[in-house]
């Protein structure tokens, strides 16, 4: 307490109520700015599409999520969500398996490190969106190429990250395991992998943002459904009344996934979380 009396800004903490208020503040400001901006534009042109009113946003949500589409009879928001999440899930799962498998191998085995680490470092720098035509011709225009784009987008980062984490393990652990007679396979499976699990979750959390980006890019190029497909299709008609709720929905899904991963990490690997809190 003595410190906080010194009056320096870095020592002043808000109370818990004020803290919550401060956290809400930027969101409230954004909403307010939107409401005012939308009001001004709509008073000039009641049909303005750029910043629709909250009621037309609500109408669009009602229409996209809770009423069957006039032409197809589908509930578009849910059809799009299922299509996008299955692509995202496939891509992220594959990227995680590849990232963990290759990352751990490269981090642990010198021969693999010499062969792969320079290659992965260079490969990770290729912007996948710039070589899209090659991806198409190789994987076709269907679901495979969308999943492949996500994998190419995030797997190299996960490989590099995990290889780095493996090399950070104290060498005493590896030596000790060897004196107890463990084989390379044993060490990888019993010493390294269990310690990498929470770190894989970290890498996954950091990659999810990019994974969404690549998913939406893939859906913009060729698709018949998906959250990114709908946004890019309706952008042609400046239908911000649908696009904004979709953006909100994507953001919400991403926040929820991040939250779930973090809680799972705390629940499943408490030793890791407490260790990190100490350091």
């Amino acid at each position, binding site marked *: 307490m003595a410190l906080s009396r010194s009056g320096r800004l870095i020592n002043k903490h808000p109370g818990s109520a004020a803290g919550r208020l401060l956290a809400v503040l930027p969101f409230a400001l954004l909403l307010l700015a939107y409401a005012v901006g939308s009001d001004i534009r709509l008073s000039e*042109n009641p*049909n303005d599409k750029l910043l629709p009113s909250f009621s037309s946003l609500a109408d669009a949500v009602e*229409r996209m999520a809770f009423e069957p589409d006039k032409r197809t009879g589908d509930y578009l928001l849910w059809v799009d969500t299922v299509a996008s999440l299955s692509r995202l899930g496939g891509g992220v799962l594959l990227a995680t398996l590849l990232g963990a498998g290759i990352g751990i191998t490269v981090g642990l085995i010198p021969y693999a490190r010499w062969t792969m680490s320079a290659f992965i470092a260079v490969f990770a720098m290729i912007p996948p969106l710039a070589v899209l035509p090659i991806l198409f011709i190789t994987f076709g225009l269907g679901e495979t190429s969308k999943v492949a784009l996500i994998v190419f987008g995030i797997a190299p980062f996960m490989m590099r990250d995990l290889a780095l984490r493996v090399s950070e393990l104290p060498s005493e652990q590896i030596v000790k395991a060897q004196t107890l007679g463990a084989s390379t396979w044993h060490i990888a499976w019993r010493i390294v992998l269990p310690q990498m699990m929470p770190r894989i979750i970290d890498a996954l959390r950091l990659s999810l943002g990019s994974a969404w980006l690549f998913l939406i890019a893939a859906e913009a190029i060729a698709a018949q459904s998906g959250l990114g497909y709908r946004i890019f299709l309706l952008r*042609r008609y400046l239908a911000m009344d649908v696009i904004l709720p979709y953006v909100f929905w994507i953001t919400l899904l991403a926040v929820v996934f991040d939250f779930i991963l973090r809680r799972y990490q705390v629940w499943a690997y408490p030793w890791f979380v407490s260790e990190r809190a100490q350091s």
Partner: protein
Amino acid sequence: MKLFSKTLVALATSMSLMVAGASSVNAEEKKEFKLAWSIYVGWMPWGWAADQGIVDKWADKYDIEIEVVQFNDYIESINQYTAGAFDGVTATNMDTLAIPSVGGVDTTALIVGDFSNGNDALILKGADSLDAVLGQNVNLVELSVSHYLLARALETLGKAEKDVAVVNTSDADMIAAYQTDDVTAVVTWNPLVAEILEIPGANKVFDSSDIPGEIMDLTVVNTETLADNPAFGKALAGAWYETMSIMLSDTPEGAAARAAMGEASGTDLAGYDMQLASTQMFATASDAVTFTTSESVTSTMESVRTFLFERGLLGDGASSPDIVGIAFPDGSVLGDEGNVKFRFNADYMSMAADGSL
């Protein structure tokens, strides 16, 4: 807390001013104007006319300034115009109706530059009759003129869109997409059409010359801005038809102009001439006036608005295609006369034809 609420109000006000600032380009008399254009065979003249100082020359004549801005993304240019950041834009008749007009921005077709006469085409892989398209996946930019062309092609067979499966595909990736095995039918526009037709096995089975005059390339301007500033319309029309007379002439100057336009659109003189061959450019203002004042424009807009209405693009509250009024040079109106948001106007083209600019 007082300071806090003051800051909040100030912040909100400044943010909303930013937003409002972008929308206040329309209305009242002014001196500075902005025209947006994008790369397409029928709109390349704007870029060239700006480079050659032709636009400036005509703007000076009417004592105004016109900034000509090139967009790499066609739809973005229309969206920016609709949001109020530009006074005019190049667009097709269909996109003008669906974006600014439905968006409540009263828009006038000032110059009808050309209509597509083969530039948009349906191409099949390994089949050479139109009815082979039935039951196939068709890759195209959904809700674009390509989609419209497909709908019109299916109409000629007495079929509808449910008889094929449309796959939305970005135009930037159309050529790569065509080369994958699962793509067997595409609808797209030039120069992509020419590029794809060079691939063995590609057959053009329907193109815009089968529906002549229906896909028009326009230069449109904000109606209110034009009413308050006729000088803007006069300068644009003057610059456009001076450019036409140079570029379409069979002279070294004309060839040089077309070569420059070809280069600016990523091809050369031969490539650009080939695209012009499937574009019905109106070389003179009087040709454009004859076309714009003809009956066929009304029937075209009838079929365009029906296409848009069936796809929900005239707004979700729209109970009939009549919701947005479309006015023609003779004063007739298609749809709601109280809500005219798209106007074909031959006045400025007529002035250019009479030489009274």
